[in-house]
């Protein structure tokens, strides 16, 4: 199901891969130099780093117990003494639950992309490098999964498997594998047709050696940048699954699930109820901008 848009994007990636080859040894130094001059990317990276530290040290930073509620202090407003961000529908401290909730939200937002990156790039490089029937088999299977809108595919798989963190991660991994395969395949094809690959082959290198020595270094960068941009989508989808009751189960703190259980509270404490979503939004937009920054920094033009 390829359209001209995907082929145009693929062509661009192939060009990037070829440019990557043309770069000399100062490449990473150059990338770092360009990144440093990009205030938006640096700011996003800083925010993400702070969030990461906050959720890693959540037990130390949290003023209360994430599971311990109380009927007499349900749904307090933002700014209540001792409960700076208010309390939820069971009287649990929102700040504590946001800090702890970030752990699962980040975990479920990043892990599927990591898995999909590992599996997808392996299959994609294989398809792109070997070509022929292997390519045909892998890419036509990819087409089938492309025939589903990604939200629908994630909901379908985790809906059939049932609620649970493991099932949600499995479903999301399956959603992202085909997307990474497509990118990996087109980038690899771009590199495969270059002279040094022919030279290596002529000098007797095996296919495996060529991939390991000549192809990997040139294709992993663009695939990695693409995968980074998927984290934002994955975060929204993972929290969305929890929001539908398909990911984490109560009373586990998770941003999407918190948003769902607080939905009934929007008439009582509307601004408390929307806080978990704000966390998802900030994380997602930072990952998106970070991916954009990386893409620009790693893509040398002229």
């Amino acid at each position, binding site marked *: *199901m390829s359209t001209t848009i995907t082929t145009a994007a693929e062509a661009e990636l192939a060009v990037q891969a070829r440019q990557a080859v043309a770069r000399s040894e100062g490449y990473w130094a150059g990338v770092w130099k360009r990144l440093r001059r990009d205030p938006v990317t640096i700011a996003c990276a800083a925010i993400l780093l702070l969030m990461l530290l906050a959720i890693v040290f959540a037990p130390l930073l949290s003023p209360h117990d994430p599971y311990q509620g109380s009927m007499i202090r349900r749904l307090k407003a933002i700014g209540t003494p001792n409960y700076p961000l208010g309390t939820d529908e069971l009287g649990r401290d929102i700040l504590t639950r946001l800090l702890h909730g970030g752990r699962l939200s980040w975990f479920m937002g990043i892990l599927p992309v990591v898995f999909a990156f590992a599996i997808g790039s392996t299959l994609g490089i294989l398809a792109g490098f070997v070509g022929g029937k292997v390519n045909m088999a892998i890419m036509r299977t990819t087409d089938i999964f492309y025939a*589903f809108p990604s939200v629908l595919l994630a909901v379908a798989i985790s809906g059939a498997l049932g609620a649970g963190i493991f099932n949600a991660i499995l479903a999301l991994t399956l959603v992202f594998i085909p997307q990474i395969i497509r990118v990996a395949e087109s980038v690899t094809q771009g590199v495969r047709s270059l002279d040094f690959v022919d030279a290596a082959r002529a000098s007797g290198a095996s296919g495996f050696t060529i991939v390991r020595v000549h192809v990997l270094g040139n294709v992993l960068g663009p695939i990695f940048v693409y995968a980074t941009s998927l984290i*934002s989508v994955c975060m929204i989808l993972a929290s969305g699954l929890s929001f539908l009751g398909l990911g984490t189960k109560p009373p586990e703190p998770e941003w999407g699930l918190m948003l769902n259980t607080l939905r009934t509270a929007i008439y009582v404490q509307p601004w408390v109820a929307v806080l978990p*979503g*704000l966390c998802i939004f900030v994380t997602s937009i930072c990952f*998106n901008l970070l991916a*954009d920054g990386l893409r620009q920094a790693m893509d040398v033009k002229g």
Partner: protein
Amino acid sequence: MLLYLLRRVVYAVPIALAVGFVCFMLVQIAPGDPINAIVPPDAPADVVEQVRKDYGLDKPLPVQFGLWISKVAIGDLGRSLATGRPVWADLRSAIGNTLMLAFAASAIGFTLGCVLGGLAGTFRGSALDRGAVGIAVAGVSVPHYWLGMVLVVIFSVQLNWLPAMGAGPGGSSDWGWDWDHVKHLILPAATLSVIPMGIVTRTVRGIVAEIMNQEFVTALRGKGLTRWGVFGHVVKNAAPNALAVMGLQLGYLMGGSILVETVFSWPGTGLLLNSAIFQRDLPVLQGTILVLAMFFVALNLCVDLVQTSLDPRIKRA
């Protein structure tokens, strides 16, 4: 050209079959015996065995798939476990509502996206461009189910201007063209429109910027063509690719509206899916996914065909 179109149509058949197979497998991967997807868990054992025979569930998997797909082909998607009604009956009314929402959302999202993207692409590097890019990034990064809640808080809870739930007065799910109904559509459609708005803005910006860099635009300007004259040429060149992206976005909206429909209790396929998941009503889940995915396959095909016939530069023999 005709041959290409024909080949495209023929190629969609195995894709549709494979999509059907994935939907068929949904019930197979579900934990427990697939028979539980047909009979309620409290059915007596002899009834279970009878149903197993009737449905061919004692036969090998490929045969089962054949039986299932031939039933689906004549519109028999099975019966809901929760209500006992045919799945198709519930789906039919839900699809209308989802289409309504998707069309309204795309009308908003595509218009804004084209305007913002067009302006950003034309005046690349300006403050306007940066603003449009910022809006686009926010549009694709925002968890839309959360945006829906925020809009409800502002426009329903605080201002009390618009209803927070449902598709019509008194919880009716039948559509009518009056203010009472349109009022219910505004918030969900606005919420759902942010994703296509962001993506269309990005795409149109890219396409327009690329066209503006081409020599023929300079030539047209040099020839003394007015701003609007040049604009016409740019639109003509940008249209096929932009339309392709928008077509696919419409498909994503149909499938992706589940979260927004849940937030607003909009009686479409998303809400149907949500209650099916909640009640573990596998026939409804399977049927809804199948119909939505088939719709997406068909839409993909249409986009390809329209794009090919619109763009004379594509000569795929």
